[in-house]
């Protein structure tokens, strides 16, 4: 019961903030809504038992990446606001088509899930329930089975860092 209320509230917030991100006129408002959206998503992660992921979401996404967005928005907003000129070739109609597709998809999932009880999927769970803390498990996986992807990710970040410096510097 409590879980349901929490989920529906959070889902409403996530989707509401998502709509605002996509529709807001002012870019800074978009960023603020994005942060709110991310925080709600972090709570969803907590509900799903992924505390570490939730913290990473807040720390890296909301606290790091979006600060970067805000930084850039403030830098480029100095002279003039976001373009208010009317659309020329934007496919805003595509958006509505997509919305319709999404509606269809959701209703399909709902119909499908109603036809097939959830317990069938739950029974398919193979591995036993974790008893130790979530952080330890994730850490263990990251540094053993997924060590190579982990290193690749760190290389990717390094490359991205160098690339960003090169792009942002006026002359090298």
């Amino acid at each position: 019961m409590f879980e349901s209320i929490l989920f529906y509230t959070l889902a409403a917030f996530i989707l509401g903030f998502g709509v605002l991100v996509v529709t807001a006129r002012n870019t800074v408002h978009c960023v603020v809504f994005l942060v709110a959206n991310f925080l709600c998503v972090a709570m969803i992660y907590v509900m799903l038992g992924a505390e570490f992921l939730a913290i990473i979401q807040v720390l890296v996404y909301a606290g790091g990446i979006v600060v970067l967005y805000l930084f850039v928005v403030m830098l480029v907003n100095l002279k003039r606001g976001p373009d208010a000129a009317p659309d020329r070739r934007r496919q805003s109609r595509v958006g509505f088509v997509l919305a319709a597709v999404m509606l269809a998809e959701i209703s399909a999932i709902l119909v499908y899930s109603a036809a097939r009880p959830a317990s069938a999927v739950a029974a398919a769970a193979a591995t036993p329930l974790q008893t130790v803390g979530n952080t330890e498990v994730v850490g263990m996986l990251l540094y053993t089975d997924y060590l190579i992807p982990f290193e690749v990710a760190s290389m990717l970040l390094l490359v991205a860092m160098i690339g960003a410096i090169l792009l942002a510097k006026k002359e090298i």
Partner: protein
Amino acid sequence: MFDTNELVINMGPQHPSTHGVLRVILRLDGERVIGSDVVIGYLHRGVEKLCEHRDWAQIVLITDRMDYVAAASNNLGYVETVEKLMSIEVPRRARYIRTILAELQRIASHCLWLGTHAMDIGAMTVFLYAFRERELVLDLFEEYCGARLTYNAMRVGGLPLDIPPGWDRKVRDFCDILGPKVDEYEQLLTHNRIWLERTRGVGVIPGEDAVAIGLSGPPLRGSGIPRDVRKDEPYAAYAEFDFDIPIGAAGDTYDRYLVRIEEFRQSVRIIRQALDGLPEGPILGKVPRLIKPPAGETYHAIEAPKGELGYFIASDGKSNTPYRFRVRPPSFCNLQALSRLIKGHLVADVVALIGSLDIVLGEVDR
């Protein structure tokens, strides 16, 4: 920082660190200053024109209002110029007391500079420490002439009144107090790493450029030019005293700071010598009842706390007001360097540099 746009920022005339109503229009690239316009005149009261409509004795009072943190020095410059114009011999005792007053004034002015300069860089405690000592100087002035800021303390030909009994003793006590206090300021700042980082290499101006711009006083001496009117063209009783002219090497903010700190000590030295040799005698020379200098013009400069304070006065010999009255205020001339100094530095350095030039807008705008 990225340099997407140029940001024009209007620093002042209402800004905590522009020392009054200085306005600096900064063009920023990120936080780096790429250009600036220094706008003055917000405190213009027409002092020079005003003086041309007052008789010679009343002008002393107006000079108080120029560099209002160093009123006695302004008085001294004016009365000496008129004395030069009229060839009046000033009694030796009066010259000694004038020297003491001028040096006390230098200490008070430097205290104010040190406090505000340190405050601009963020060291808030030094501000109150320096004001504590300035308060003592003001007390001395109050006892001498009754005023704490605008003293009106000198007259053409000498002084309006002799020192009150026991005053010299108090000045001596103050000199004993000040020495350790200056050491205390130095403990807080001189070897402080943050202070060094904030001042070293900031706003460097080489000696010949400083001369070319027309700097004077501590900013000039900080650049290594040993020019001091007290030594080069002695006035009052300076010729009779033994003191050093501190000079800097690099010409940066730190050197200007060190020069002024050393001037505290030299001022104490001068005051002590003056008190030791204070002669007896009259305090007012032979001055006609109505001061009316003969026709002619003259320029006379003194070393005010902020630099060379010069008066150019022309008299037509007929009216009892100056025909032309012109001041060379040290702050005004030193301020010329600001635009050049802050170019290429950060916003934080702008306030440090305004502080290191030690300007008083009352004097800049007159």
